[in-house]
C-alpha cells in the first residue's frame, strides 16, 4: 500500500490551492443536496426520472469513463508507450459509441428496460440475467475500489495522509452525494467534473508543450528517448500490444481492442448505458453517446500528450525510464502512473495547481460515483426486486437503493486494498473488462439480430465465454502463452467472443427458442420500425439533432485524426 511513498511527489500546495479544492467539494455536495429534491420515486433515484437533456447525458457518458483509470492510466500509457495509446480512444471507443447510439439504443430505450441486465432477462430469461447481474455488480465494486485507491494515493501525495484515511474520507464524500441525489447527482457531478478536468489538463498540456519547444520539440525529444520514434505514430502500435509483428498488432488492435473489447465495454456496460437511459427522449438517448464522442476524440490530446511530455522532461523519468521500460523498479521510486502528478509538480504555479488537484480528485470521485450508481440500480432492480423481495411498494426500493449504495461503498473500500497490489492499474482493469464484457457483447449482438437464439444459449454462452477469457488470462500470467503487454487482454477478449458465439449458435440449434410474441422490441426483425425510430419534431428537430448526421461527422473527424497521427 505504499506505492508512492518513496518518490518525492509531495505537491507544494498553498492555501489558495486548498481553497479552490474546498470550493469544488462544496459544489459537489451542494449538487447532491439540490438533486435530492428531485428524487421522489425509485425511477428518479436510479434513472433520473428519464428527464435529462442530451448534452448533459452525453457529457456524463464520457465523464463516467473519464475516471482515475482513464486520466492516470492513459497518461501512464502515454509516458510508457507514447502515441499508440490513442487507439484506446479512436479505435477503442468512437466506433462503439456510434454503434451504441445508432443501432442498439433503440432497443435499450425503446423497450423501457431499467438496466442492461433487465434487457438480458427479457430476451433470455432468468439464468442469463442472474449471471449478468451478479458479474456486473461484482465488477462495479472492484472498479470502484480501483478508483478509490487512486484517489486516496493522490490525497496521500497532497496531504501526506495515510492511504486508509483518504480512502475512507473519499468514500464518505462520494457516498453522501450518490445516496442523497441518486443518478441525477452523479450525472450532474460528472458534467461538472468534465469541465474541471479540461480546466486542469488543458493549461497543463499547453505549458508542457511550450516547455519542450512545441510539437516539434516533443517529437525531437521523444525520438531521442528510450522507446524512440515508434512512440510517435499510432499505427501499427507494436510496443503497445507486445505482439512483435506489425500485422498481428494491427489485427489485435482492430479486432481485439476496436471490436470485441470496445464494443463490449461501450455497448453493454450499464455504467455507460444508464446515462443514455436517463435522457428524456429516444432522440436524446440516441444522441447521448454520439455527443459524447466529440469530446472523446479530443481527450487524448490533454491526457496522453502530458504523459509523453512528462516522460521526456521530468528528471526522474529521464533517469529511470530505461529501467521502467524493462519492467524494473525505478531508483527514484516513480512509476508511470505518476506521470501526470510529476508534470503538475514541475510546471504548475499555485493557483493552477489547486485547479489541477481538484480536476484529478473530481475525476476519481466521479468515476467511483458512476460505478456506485450503476451498481445500486442493478443490485436493487435486478437482484433484490427480481429474486428476493418482489412486489414491495416503490418507496421500499428507493430506501433499499440508498442502503445498498452505502453497503457497496463499504465493499469498494475493501477492494481498494486489492487494487493497490497491482502495479499498472490499467492492466488490471483491462483484464476485468475482457472477462465481463466481451462475452456479454457477443451474446447481446447475436440475441438482438437472431431471433432463433435460445435462453439456454444465452447463459451457457456467457459462462463459457467468461471462463475461456479467464483461462487465456491465467495461461498468460503463468507465462505459458508467451504474451506480454496489453495484448493479453486483446487475445483473451477475442477468444471469449469467438467461444461465446460458437457455443451460442450450437446450443441454439438444439434447444427451444422463446416464442416470437415475447421478443417484440428486443429483436431487430420482430420490432416494428415505429418503435425503433424517434420523434424529429419540436425539441428534436434540426439536422444537428439527427443521430445519423452527428455520427457521420464524428466518423469523418476520427478517420482524419488516424491519418494525421
Amino acid at each position, binding site marked *: 500500500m505504499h506505492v508512492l511513498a518513496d518518490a518525492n511527489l509531495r505537491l507544494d500546495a498553498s492555501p*489558495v490551492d486548498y*481553497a*479552490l479544492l474546498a*470550493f*469544488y467539494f462544496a*459544489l459537489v455536495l*451542494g*449538487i447532491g443536496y*439540490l438533486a435530492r*429534491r*428531485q428524487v*421522489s*420515486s425509485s*425511477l*428518479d433515484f436510479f434513472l433520473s*426520472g*428519464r*428527464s*435529462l*437533456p*442530451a*448534452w*448533459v447525458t452525453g457529457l456524463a457518458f464520457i465523464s463516467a469513463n473519464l475516471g482515475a483509470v482513464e486520466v492516470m492510466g492513459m497518461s501512464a500509457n502515454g509516458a510508457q508507450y507514447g502515441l499508440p495509446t490513442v487507439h484506446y480512444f479512436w479505435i477503442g471507443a468512437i466506433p462503439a459509441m456510434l454503434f451504441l447510439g445508432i443501432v442498439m439504443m433503440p432497443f435499450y430505450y425503446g423497450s423501457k428496460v431499467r438496466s442492461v441486465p433487465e434487457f438480458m432477462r427479457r430476451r433470455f430469461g432468468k439464468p442469463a440475467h442472474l449471471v449478468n447481474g451478479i458479474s456486473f455488480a461484482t465488477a462495479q465494486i472492484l472498479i470502484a475500489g480501483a478508483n478509490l485507491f487512486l484517489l486516496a494515493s493522490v490525497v496521500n501525495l497532497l496531504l501526506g495522509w495515510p492511504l486508509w484515511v483518504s480512502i475512507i474520507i473519499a468514500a464518505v464524500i462520494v457516498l453522501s452525494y450518490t445516496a442523497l441525489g441518486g443518478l441525477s447527482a452523479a450525472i*450532474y457531478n460528472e*458534467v*461538472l467534473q468534465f*469541465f*474541471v478536468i479540461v*480546466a486542469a489538463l*488543458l*493549461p497543463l498540456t*499547453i*505549458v508542457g508543450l*511550450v*516547455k519542450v519547444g512545441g510539437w516539434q520539440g516533443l517529437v525531437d525529444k521523444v525520438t531521442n528517448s528510450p522507446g524512440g520514434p515508434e512512440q510517435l505514430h499510432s499505427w501499427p502500435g507494436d510496443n503497445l500490444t507486445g505482439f512483435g509483428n506489425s500485422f498481428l498488432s494491427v489485427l489485435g488492435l482492430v479486432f481485439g481492442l476496436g471490436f470485441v473489447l470496445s464494443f463490449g465495454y461501450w455497448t453493454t456496460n450499464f455504467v455507460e448505458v444508464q446515462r443514455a437511459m436517463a435522457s*428524456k*427522449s429516444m432522440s436524446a438517448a440516441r444522441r447521448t453517446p454520439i455527443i459524447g464522442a466529440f469530446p472523446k476524440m479530443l481527450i487524448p490530446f490533454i491526457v496522453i500528450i502530458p504523459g509523453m511530455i512528462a516522460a521526456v522532461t521530468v528528471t526522474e523519468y529521464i533517469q529511470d525510464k530505461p529501467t521502467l521500460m524493462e519492467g524494473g523498479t525505478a531508483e527514484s521510486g516513480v512509476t508511470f502512473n505518476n506521470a501526470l502528478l510529476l508534470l503538475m509538480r*514541475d*510546471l*504548475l*504555479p*499555485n*493557483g*493552477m495547481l489547486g*485547479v489541477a488537484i481538484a480536476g484529478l480528485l473530481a475525476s476519481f470521485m466521479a468515476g467511483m460515483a458512476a460505478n456506485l450508481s450503476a451498481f445500486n440500480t442493478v443490485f436493487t432492480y435486478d437482484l433484490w426486486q427480481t429474486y428476493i423481495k418482489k412486489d414491495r411498494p416503490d418507496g421500499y426500493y428507493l430506501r433499499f437503493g440508498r442502503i445498498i449504495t452505502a453497503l457497496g461503498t463499504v465493499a469498494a473500500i475493501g477492494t481498494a486494498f486489492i487494487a493497490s497490489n497491482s502495479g499498472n492499474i490499467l492492466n488490471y482493469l483491462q483484464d476485468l473488462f475482457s472477462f465481463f464484457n466481451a462475452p456479454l457483447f457477443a451474446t447481446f449482438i447475436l440475441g438482438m439480430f437472431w431471433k432463433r437464439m435460445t435462453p439456454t444459449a444465452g447463459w451457457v454462452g456467457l459462462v463459457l465465454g467468461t471462463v475461456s477469457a479467464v483461462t487465456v488470462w491465467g495461461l498468460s500470467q503463468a507465462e505459458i502463452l508467451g504474451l506480454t503487454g496489453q495484448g493479453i487482454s486483446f487475445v483473451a477478449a477475442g477468444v471469449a467472443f469467438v467461444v461465446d458465439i460458437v457455443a451460442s449458435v450450437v446450443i441454439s440449434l438444439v434447444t427451444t427458442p422463446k416464442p416470437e410474441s415475447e421478443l417484440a422490441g428486443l429483436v431487430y426483425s420482430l420490432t416494428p420500425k415505429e418503435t425503433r425510430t424517434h420523434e424529429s419534431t419540436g*425539441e428534436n428537430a434540426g439536422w444537428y439533432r439527427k443521430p445519423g448526421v452527428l455520427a457521420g461527422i464524428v466518423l469523418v473527424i476520427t478517420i482524419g485524426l488516424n491519418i494525421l497521427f
Partner: protein
Amino acid sequence: MSTESSSRPRSAGAFDIRLIIALLLGVYGLVLTVMGIWFTTDDDLAKAADVNINLWAGIGMLVVTALFVLWAQVRPIIITESPEPTESPETDVSKAE
C-alpha cells in the same frame, strides 16, 4: 419526454447545471486571474516555461463562464410541470436543451 406514470409530487426544484458550471469556472477564473496579475513571482514564471499560466487559464475560464451564462439566459429551462401533482405524462422537469 418520459412516458412513465408520473403522479409524483415535485417541488419545482429544477436547478440549472449550466449555472453551477458557470459558478465554478467563474470563481476559479477570477481567483486565477487575480493570482496571475498580482501574485506571480519570477519563480512561478520560470517553473511554467515563462508562461503566466494562471492569468491565461483564468481569462479562458472567465470566457467560458460568460458563454454558459449567456446560454442559460438565451435558452432558459422550461418548466412544464404544474405546482400540484397531476396525472399528465408530460410533467417531467424539462432541463434546458
